[in-house]
Each structure stands twice: as C-alpha cells, then as structure tokens.
C-alpha cells in the first residue's frame, strides 16, 4: 500500500492538485480531498467499460485487431483523406496535444478541440475586446464580490467555491463558510416551520416564495459585510441557493441584462422599467454593489456561451468588467470545464497562433470559427474522415453532426467504450492521462500543473502520445511511398 499526495485531478478545469490517493496492488483504493466526480473517476476508471484492445469495424461489428493493424488502418485513412477532422484533445496532456498539431499539419486537416462546444465563444469574445483576468489565488486572496453568471459550480466544478472563492481563506479576505453554515441552519429551521405548518401543527400561513422572475433575496443582502456571492442564472441552481443574492434572468436575455448594467454603472438612465425580467430598480442595487466592491470577479459558464448571442454575451460581459475598472478592481474568468481543454487551446496557440478550429488544409494554419470549426464542417458534411481523441462527440454533439460524422471513416482513441467509440470504425484503447500516464495540464486560469502516473496501465495499452506518434510515423511512411509511386508512374 502506498499513498500518493498532491495528485492533480484530471476531471474539470479546477485541476485540484491536493488529491491524496491510496494505491494497493496497482489500483486506487481510496481518494481523499476529491469531489464526487473525482472519486468516481479514480475509483471507477478501471471498470468494465474500458476498451481492452484495438478494434476495427468489420461487417458492421467492432472486432479486436493488433495494434499494428489498427495504426496502419488509421494512418491509411488520414493520409488519403482530402479534408479530415482531428477533434477532441481535452482529456489528454499537453504533450499529446503537441503531437496532435503535428499530425494535423501532416495530414492537412482541421484540428479542433472541445472548446468549440464549451468556451469557444468565450475565446471569440476575448478576441473582440480582450479580457481582464487573473489566476485563481488572486481571487482567493482579494475578492470581496464574487459573481457566478450562467454557471453552476456546485454541479460542474464542485470544489471551486471551497478552493478559490467564497469559502476559501485568503490573505485579505476571509472564508464565508461559517456564514453559509449559519444560513443553512436558519433555512433548515424555516423548512421545519413550513413542514409543521403543512402538517397542521402551526396555524399561520408561511410567507409565499417570491415569484420566480424576481430576485430571490432582497437587495439588502448586498450590503452585508465580508465576501458577497451573487448568482445570475435562468433557474435556481444549487449554487444559486448558496448565494447572498440571486438574479433570475429570462432565458436568452443575458445580453440585454449586461448592457443595461453597463449603462447603470456609468450612472446612465434607461427608458425601460424591466430588463430580462428583472426590474431596473433591482439592477441599480446590483450596479451599486459592483461599483462599491474592492475587488470583484465574474465567473461565467455555458449559460452565456450556449445561449442566444453566444460570444457576444461574453464580449459584453468582458466589456462590463472593463468598464467597472474605471471605478474599482474587477476581473472575469470563464469556468473552463473539460479537464485540459485550456491546455488544448494553449498548445494550439503556441504552435499555430490559433487556439481552436485550426485548418491546415492549405499547408498553413487558418482560423475562422464558423468555417474552420469541426461543428460547421460536420454539419455541412465537408469532411471525409474523422479522428476523435480524448472527447466524446458521439454523446455530446447534436444529432446531425454525429450522423454526418459516421458517414465517413471514424477513428477513436479513448480509454472507455464511450458513445463515439461505439460508433467508431477504428478504435484505440488509451491509457488514462493523469492516472496511468503523466503529463501536463492547464487549469482554467492557464496555470500549468503536472499530472501524475499513479498506477501502471493495463498490459498492451499505450498512452495517447504513443498512439499518435505511431500514427504520425505511419502516415509519413505511407505518404513517402505514395510520392515514390507517383514518381515511378511518371
């Protein structure tokens, strides 16, 4: 039995690096410090959903083949492809991503990562107006106003509050954990009263919950001492329940709400009484809170990137923060979700200049989301082969995109038999990055962290890096042979 400390969790953009694992007989048996998802991964990665050997679809069924056969088949597909897509790159290391760029360049394909379906719009927004941001520790030490907008950290980044924001202890700001526990107790008390009323033990009618389009708490919550937490969302998420102040915005109306706040923080007047279902009176209180904090931060998620406006929502959120810097210190950060998706952007940018959706078909990198992003290529069916690594578009892409994807050869590299692997033509089993393979990943704030190898991968299972390298070598051999044949033919 051994204990490994300071392990980086390979799940979400938080990359909590304080995980303690107990290893017995080359298996993780205990997880300390992690969230529920972290535990599920470290304890469940070995489950029966693992792919055990390379597979190739023959007569409609995936059948086991040798590694060499699979590598050759994949390389043939890619070397001959006229417009291949190489997609995924998020649940893997920067080291593998580097080879990915080289492979895509070699086969003249479109390299895209999962940012396209999460924070791609954030990158587009940043490209319009820049981004005032920081590392997470900065927020832990200094932020006295924390806003989660269109995101639910409790569900998607379970330890975010505890490690980096409201419930974390910083040099200049204290944790709000105690205050929150008291609030919980008070609420529990209220619930008891309510249930007592329902069962007839108390005769007086409890106050009705306020209408859902109105903020959930009185603006006075914004004048409390200590760190304030505001959640803005279309529904009352678990995180919203923790907040001091919750603003429920009508779906697809975040853009209007932010523009209105931009006017209000400049002491401007609006010709309307309500924006996005929120009374302007409330918004004025919010604007005051924003201007009067010492150090504020907005975290935003898919609630902005995936709703109407998409990257314009991000652009205007950033503009709001930029405007706020005229009055106080204010920063903003996307809640990057998928493990090392940030690394995929980072690596792609340093090698090609562009963070995602990079098209190498003309022999040099080109970038234009909407044109060179895999979603658009798939929906227009312009591709003739796809390689998917470290992502599961089969489960996470809209139906039409997947339908077009399976029209052409589909190569899949993944540890698990996920939806894409089930649909694949050539399937490679991969070792788990951050459990069975070491490497580097980038946290949501671009801080690089080392990933540890804590157990040996199963026999005959290679790392993403190794599989990609072998495919790349094989592609080069095939291209050389073809060039030679061409010379001989003429």
């Amino acid at each position, binding site marked *: 039995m051994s204990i490994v400390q300071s392990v980086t969790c390979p799940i979400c953009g938080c990359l909590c690096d*304080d995980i303690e694992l107990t290893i017995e007989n080359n298996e993780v048996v205990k997880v300390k410090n992690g969230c529920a998802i972290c535990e599920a991964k470290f304890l469940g990665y070995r489950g029966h959903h693992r792919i055990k050997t390379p597979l190739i679809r023959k007569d409609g069924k995936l059948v086991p083949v040798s590694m060499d056969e699979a590598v050759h088949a994949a390389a043939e597909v890619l070397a001959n492809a006229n417009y291949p897509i190489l997609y995924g790159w998020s649940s893997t290391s920067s080291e593998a991503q580097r080879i990915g760029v080289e492979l895509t360049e070699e086969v003249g394909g479109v390299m895209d990562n999962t940012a396209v379906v999460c924070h791609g719009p954030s990158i587009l927004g940043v*490209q319009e107006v820049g981004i005032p941001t920081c*590392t997470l520790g900065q927020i832990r030490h200094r932020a006295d106003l924390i806003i989660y907008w269109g995101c639910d950290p409790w569900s998607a980044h379970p330890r975010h509050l505890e490690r980096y924001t409201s419930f974390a202890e910083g040099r200049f700001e204290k944790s709000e954990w105690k205050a929150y526990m008291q609030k919980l107790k008070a609420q529990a008390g209220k619930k008891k009263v309510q249930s007592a009323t329902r069962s007839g033990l108390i005769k007086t009618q409890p106050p009705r919950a306020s209408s859902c389009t109105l903020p959930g708490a009185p603006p006075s919550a914004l004048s409390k001492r200590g760190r304030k937490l505001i959640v803005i969302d279309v529904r009352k998420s678990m995180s919203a329940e923790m907040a001091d102040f919750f603003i429920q915005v009508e779906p697809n109306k975040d853009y209007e709400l932010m523009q209105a706040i931009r006017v209000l923080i400049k002491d401007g007047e609006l010709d309307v009484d309500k924006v996005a279902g929120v009374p302007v009176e409330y918004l004025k209180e919010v604007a005051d809170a924003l201007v009067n904090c*010492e150090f504020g931060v907005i975290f935003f998620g898919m609630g902005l990137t995936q709703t109407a406006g998409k990257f314009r929502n991000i652009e205007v959120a950033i503009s709001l923060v*930029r405007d706020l810097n005229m009055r106080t210190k204010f920063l903003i950060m996307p809640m990057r979700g998928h493990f090392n998706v940030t690394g995929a952007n980072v690596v792609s940018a*340093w*090698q*090609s200049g562009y963070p995602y959706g990079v098209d190498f078909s003309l022999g040099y990198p080109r970038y234009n989301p909407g044109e060179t992003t895999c979603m658009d290529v798939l929906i227009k069916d312009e591709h003739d082969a796809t390689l998917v690594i470290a992502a599961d578009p089969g489960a996470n892409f809209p139906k039409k995109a997947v339908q077009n994807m399976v029209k052409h050869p589909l190569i899949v590299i993944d540890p698990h038999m996920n939806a894409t692997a089930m649909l694949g033509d050539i399937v490679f089993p991969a070792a788990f990055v951050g459990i069975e393979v070491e490497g580097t990943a980038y946290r949501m704030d671009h801080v690089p*962290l080392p990933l540890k190898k804590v157990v040996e991968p199963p026999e005959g299972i290679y790392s993403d890096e190794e599989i990609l390298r072998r495919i790349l070598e094989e592609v080069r051999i095939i291209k050389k042979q073809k060039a030679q044949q061409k010379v001989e033919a003429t």
Partner: protein
Amino acid sequence: MTELLIKNGFVFDPLNKVNGEKMDIAVKNGKIVEKVNEHKAKIIDAAGLTVMPGGVDIHTHIAGGEVNTGRMVRPEDHVKDAVRKTALTRSGTGYSIPSTFVTGYRYSQMGYTTVMNPSMAPLEAKHTHEELNDIPLLDKATYPLIGDWWFVLEYLRKGDLEECARHVAWMLQTTKGYAIKIVNPGGLESWGFGRNVHSIDDQVPNFCITPREIMVGLAKVNKMLNLPHTIHLHTNNLGLPGNYTTTLDTMKALESVPSDGKPNMHITHLQFSSFGGDGWGNMRSAAEEISKYINTHSHVTADMGQVIFTDTTTMTADGPFEYTLYQLSGHKWVNSDVETETSGGIIPFHYKKNNAVNATQWSIALELALLIEDPWKIYMTTDHPNGGPFFAYPKIIAWLTSRKARMATLKKCHKKAQKKSLLPSIKRELSLYELAIVTRAGQAKALGLTNKGHLGVGADADIAIYDVNPETTDIARKYKAVRKAFGNAAYTIKDGRVVVKDGEVVQNVDGRTIWLDVQTAEPCRIDEQMKNKFREYWSVDYANYPVYDHYVKVKDPITIQASV
C-alpha cells in the same frame, strides 16, 4: 560531429578585440577551436563577407503565458502573416507574436543564436519552458518575475537579506530561470487592488515597503548570489510623460549598492523610461538627461526598446501601465494578475509616424543608443513585441549605422516630433565593430554568458555570416543593402552546424535551455512550515510548483556558487 572552417571572412569579434580582420574561424564539436584539419573540414568560403558571433538578444518576449495569451487574442494579427510548412520546417503564423517555430526560424534567419525571454510569472514557468522547447535553432533562457513576490517583499521588509537571497536562489532553480526580473517594483502588488506606485519612495499598500527598498535589496541579493547578470529592471512609471526623473532616481538609488566599477543594474527598454514633459501634449525626449547620467556612471547597462512603425502587440508584467494604454487607445485589453507574484497586461498597438508621441518614442531610442558613448552600455532591442516585432532589427541596424537611413525615416514623421528630435544634431554612425557590440558581444557580456557573443577558442560555435563586404561597402550610404544582408544571413551556424543559408533554414535543430543552478551554503529549507506557507500563498501544492527537469528538452544549467 563535422569540423568546419570559415575562411577569409572579415571577422568582427569585439570581446576579443578583432575588428574586421580577414581571418579563418575553425569549429569542432560545436566549439570554436584553434584549428581544424583543412582537408577533412567542411569549408565555408567567407571571402568578402562579414563574420560575427551569433546574435544575442537580451530581452525579447517569445514564450510563456503572457505571450501566448497575446497570440490567442489576435487572430487578425496572424491572418496577415501565414507561414507554410516545408519538408524541413513546421508551419505557423506571425505577425507581431509569431508562433514558436516561426520565432526560431526568423531569429535564425537574421543570424541570431541566443535569446532571453525576460518575463516569466514563476507560477506559470512550466508553460514558458514548454514553449521554449518548441522554439528551434536558438539557445534560450528566461527570467522569473520576482520584484513583487510576497516572499521578497516580506524578507526585505524584515531586512533579512540572507533569507531573501536563499529564497531567490530557490526560485531561480525552481523555475529554471536565469536572472532576477523586476517590473515596476511595488506597482504590481498594488495593482492587485487596482492601485499603483508613482515614485520609488511610495509605500506599497499592505506591505510597508518602497520600490527603492525592493530594487536596492534585490541588487544586493543579486551580488550575494554571484549571479552572472545584474538585476533586470523595468522601471516605475514606465511609459508616462516625465518619467525620466524616476529613472534618474532609480539609477541614483542603485549607486548605494557597491559594484566595483561593474554594472549592478540593467534597465531594459530604456526608451520607455526616458520621457520628458509633464503630459502627452508636451511629452518630449529626455534621452539627453538619461545618457548624460549613464555616460558618467559605470553601474548601469541598458537596452533600447526601439519603436517600429507598425501594428504590434504590447505585453508586459506592468499591469497598471497596460491599463493606462487601454485608456489611451481603447483597444482590446488583457489583464492577467498572478497570485503572490506579479501581474500582466496586453494591448495591441499601432505605432504611427504621424503620431507625435509615437514618433518621439522612435527618436528617443535611437538618441539613447547614439548619445550613450560606450556601446558596451546599451544594446539593440525592440522589447519584442512591445516596440515592434524582432524581425524589424535590420531596420534598426540601418538607423544605427546610417544617418542617411534615420533621417529618411525622420522626414516622414510628425512635424512636432521632427522639430523636437535630437537626431538631426547627432552625427554618430555605428561601425560594424560597434554594431557587433550592441547586437551580440555587449549583450553576452552583460548576461555573463562566457561562451556566447565571441569567437575566441572555447566559445560556442554560434556564428553569423552576412553578405556585407566592409572593404567595398560604405554601410552608412548603402543602408538598404545592409538591411537586406542582416535580415537574411548568408550563413547562421548553431553549435557548429549550418542551420541557415542565404536566409533560408537548411537544418532544423533544437537549441538549449540555459538556467542557473545557484548553490547557497545553506539551502532554502523546504519544511512543513514552508509547505504550509505555500498553501497559504498559492493555489497549488508545493510539489506541483517546480519546473522538473523533464520540462526542459535540451538542458544547459550553469552552476553558480553563491557567497551566502
């Protein structure tokens, strides 16, 4: 490894006092040697060509979090400068923030072989090193930003220089860094809450320390650690009208640190610290005041920070300065504060000839380079990409060596800037010998890189050969030919291998990453207390902070014995 003989070139090797003599250079096993077997060696006929040590850049932002964020936010910058893949080289993009491979190729095409990345947030050091690995053809090093590191502020506040020195040594090792980088000391911590310091005697909020104490303290630490380079300083109030007085105060403050007649500070991109006037309306050059001080003191070296008239991207750890630039320009603004350590910012910027301030900035850098008499004190940089992209160096070479070249540019500048410029009164034109100092020898000397910047026996065989015949070419008149020659090296030789010929990459090799392994008598104690402090200060675990050896592809550590 093949032997190489470079025959009959005009050699400019200032560190060995060789000034244009026609001689042969012999290379074996990647080093300069006395001689090689002429029958076995590969011969390069350099007759009629200029031979210099490979170029050394003391300050160029080419890798790391800030640079890469710059890449990410500027697709419109890359789209105008795409670089195709070849059988030998990788594809990529420019323009002002080239992708890593393109950075390596373009430097090498100009005959450069060693470059220093001057601005690395320690927390993001792994990122910087990952990128450096992907920059081919060059030797590289990087400076961690530690002027606003909480540990430094706290130890200096306590007056515990020894403990401070031990921690700085630890930081250099841990981040695989090369020098102490200080940016707007005290200002970056203040920027954590949106504030700044405005003189070297302002108090840093919450830390009871002044920029003066930080700079002087770290200069002393630098000396205690026997570091090869001095503190590398970006001054307070950078980029603001009237800041030259702050710069003078800073240089005067460092007089208090004993230096035995040697430099104890390097002011980087001096142009940005030499503004006169008291507002943008009457902003003027203070090159005269600054150069006068430097000419009469021996403890300062500097680099130019030349402005190029083009669309570029400014990026610096000086977060508050970038915010000022945002307010001036309204361009997209990136701010990136790093916990416990530093801050940073990015603004795209187009320097225009017809803008009086920009044109004055252009003039200031040249005035400084020409008014500072000793070329060993000021080196050629653009503070890439802040003043402009590094591949504009041939233009600067022309301006420095040819009065005709710079007057031709000045003539196109804003009238107000023309009128105020000191350039018309400056006759000086650098010789090829002096040029070799400001582009390689001086930089190598300031950096304490003993194997670089010269062609003496034992030096690294990093050599640049340019198609300039000093016997037949008057470089002051034929500046266009000079510009072309220095933009497309006839040969660039890296570690004894020809990597560029006639301006094209002909061999793709990896350069090395250089860092300091500073040995202190009693090393910095990493005990539970330190680890707890770590958790308290940073949001990562201690074990995940260092740049482990495997992060560096080709390792070249230099061991330093500290006197503490």
